[in-house]
């Protein structure tokens, strides 16, 4: 019979059970969701895409581990968030950047943007995007040299010629070369990813697939990506440029560049997006508008990176102004309460 006097009991506060999901499993889901796009990148751009991503992941995890070690803080590298940052940073760089350059980006993303502000959950902008912004500012040339997959005859083994550069669809769109654009890439190429661009952003189809996986796994909600993509779609549909047809211009706009990658994987970053669903809709719409504005009126071809970073900065404001309605207080009473204040 049990010896009840000598039980070794712990008395902690309720609840006494926890869901199986943890930070690590969420990050693992994000990594899984990015795998189709990575495989596509290897097929289109060669093994360099894989090695570059791996170097970036190892770099991020090393910097995370090293910083926590050096500062004698509890180790957090096991939560895999650094690995996600590593993959995302590789995804937004051209496949042709040298390894040392991506390591600089890793350092900036992990140490400067994430750890100096307190680690996971504390950074104020998306680390991967900040890493890219730092690289673009420092090495504009290599960061905007795009490999053209169409002219690459044996893609798995890297660039066949030295570097075959190509204009991305966004570059054509910026310069108003609609005829060249439609001649080189049709809409299906855009959707499937037979285009030049950053390593992981080219295939809209596979990114949507990854995004749907994340929504199905309840890692992200549909609000941010749908609001983001829909805003870009609506604005570009209403205001096509250079005589392109509304539908064509809209499709080239949402499938080209980083809209899909940004909407599903960057703008949904927990730390730098609003808490409430309503806030996420506002955030997504803001990202969409800024993306189009930068593309239309800015000097860059692409606006996804900066639009998300700018919206990251207003997240605190959105969270402050968009609150869930208090339980038990009906709308009219809420207004009265607000008026009394």
């Amino acid at each position, binding site marked *: *019979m*049990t010896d*009840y*006097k000598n*039980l*070794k*009991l*712990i*008395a*902690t*506060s*309720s*609840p*006494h*059970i*926890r*869901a*199986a*999901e*943890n*930070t690590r*499993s*969420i990050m693992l889901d994000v990594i899984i969701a990015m795998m189709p796009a990575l495989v596509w990148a290897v097929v289109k751009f060669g093994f360099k895409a894989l090695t570059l991503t791996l170097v970036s992941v190892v770099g991020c995890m090393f910097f995370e581990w090293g910083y926590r070690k050096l500062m004698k803080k*509890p180790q*957090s590298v096991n*939560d895999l*968030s650094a690995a996600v940052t590593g993959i995302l940073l590789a995804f937004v760089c051209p496949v042709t950047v040298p390894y040392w350059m991506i390591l600089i980006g890793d350092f900036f993303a992990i140490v400067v943007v994430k750890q100096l502000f307190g*680690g*996971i*959950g504390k950074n104020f902008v998306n680390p991967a995007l900040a890493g890219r912004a730092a690289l673009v500012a420092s090495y504009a040339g290599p960061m905007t040299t795009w490999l053209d997959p169409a002219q690459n005859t044996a893609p798995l083994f890297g660039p066949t010629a030295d570097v075959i550069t190509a204009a991305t669809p966004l570059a054509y769109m910026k310069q108003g070369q609609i005829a060249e654009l439609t001649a080189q890439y049709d809409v299906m190429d855009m959707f499937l990813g037979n285009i030049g661009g950053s390593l992981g952003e080219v295939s809209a189809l596979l990114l949507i697939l990854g995004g749907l996986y994340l929504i199905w796994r309840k890692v992200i909600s549909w609000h941010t990506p749908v609001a983001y993509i829909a805003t870009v779609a609506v604005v570009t549909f209403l205001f096509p440029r250079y005589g392109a047809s509304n539908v064509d211009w809209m499709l080239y706009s949402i499938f080209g560049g980083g809209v899909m990658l940004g909407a599903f994987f960057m703008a949904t970053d*927990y*730390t730098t997006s*609003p*808490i*409430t*669903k309503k806030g996420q809709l506002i955030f997504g719409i803001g990202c969409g508008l800024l993306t189009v504005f930068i593309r239309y009126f800015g000097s860059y071809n692409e606006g996804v990176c900066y639009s998300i970073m700018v919206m990251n900065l207003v997240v605190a404001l959105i*969270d402050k102004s968009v*609150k*869930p*309605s*208090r*339980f*038990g*207080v*009906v709308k009219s009473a809420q207004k009265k309460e607000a008026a009394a204040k």
Partner: protein
Amino acid sequence: MAQAFFGGVHPNDMKAATNEKAIEQLAPPAEVVIPMSMHFGAPCTPLVKAGDHVKVGQKIGEFRGLGAPIHASVSGTVKAVEPRPYSMGGNMMSVVIENDFKDELSEEVKAPADPDALTVEQMIEMVKDAGIVGMGGATFPTHVKITSGIGKVDTVIINGAECEPDITGDHRTMLERPEEIIGGAKFLAKMFGVDKVVIGVEDNKRNCIDAMNKVIAEQKAPVVVEPLRCRYPQGGEKQLCQAITGRQVPPGGLPADIGCAVFNINTTCAIYRALTQGMPVVKKVVTVSGSGVVEPKNIECPIGTPVSKLFDACGGLKDGTFKLICGGPMMGMAQYTADIPVAKGTGAMLAFAEDEERTVETPQCIRCGKCVSACPMHLEPLFMYQYASKGMVDELNDAHIMDCMECGACSYICPARMHLTHMFKTGKQMVKDKMAADKAAAEAKKKAAEEQKEAVNK
């Protein structure tokens, strides 16, 4: 199906361990320990002393103010009246009775000649004398709930949601004693003067719904069974009212404020027994389950039975049992000793031997917002956690921390395993302390001003 509430979580219900097992009667324990506090309110005063002989149903504790009387659950000799450990933590004055196994019924227990002829006042008096309290765990005195609700309440709800994982006591009661529940419901309808009573049952208990519907049809009772979406905390009073009536209890309010009164399944049965047999609350159905129990069961036992006897009846505890919980895994209280008795509000005794809690060393919020989506009270736990951990009391109050009912949904869902609910218990106390301090300061200031005024007048 009834309209659902916002938020909530869906833990693995773990009910399969006991929901097929009929309620067993425990072999009479040799000794019972009856704590004098088994209700919301001040503890009772013991009416007996060591050496007294008591019979089943005899009143041994009288309440003052808000409360309910306490009765002997076995016949025998009072061995001691002394403080003993009890399930709310610490020690409580308790009456220890040595069982003489004669099971003599007290003369105080008198069945009414015709239960249907009782007036509302008589019924409430009998409910009070029977020591009935909310047996879902809140233990609010039932007669107070009835008296304060008459005239205000248009919807009487019986809570058969049983949304906590592991617990199946209500499930088995609904299945095995539907006529007691329907009978109790009819009395409640009469007391409140309503023409319909709603029993809310989560739709994972289809057989209960069928069993009760059968009795309702036979008796043509004014009772409706409402299937509810299976979601924790569906059985929370406020969530249940919301699901059934669509109304929300205002902040700091009670269900009576929106015309609802909610009663637990076991409370309803107790009302039925009190009004038909004159029997006070002396027994309780307890679910004994969890990974540390060899053979989980539902057991009916006298109030005051040491929980170790319950575990013994279930084959004992497994090696490595590290946690005993009085109540469900989401809101129950972990015990530091197995030396506690079953009280009126004890619906379950759980023992854990596996790592259900999955704690981590240094939890770090990742701002995923899952706690906000899960909070049935529409709060933002992650911000409240920050305020509470930094001692920002005013911000805590503005974030409506006092609306938190400590259901544990946020902590359950948190992927970073933050200790949210625990922090809010502390935070609520901080707000209460601050309010008390502010009130005291304001009064002192007022007093000083008055004194000054008087001095000037002189």
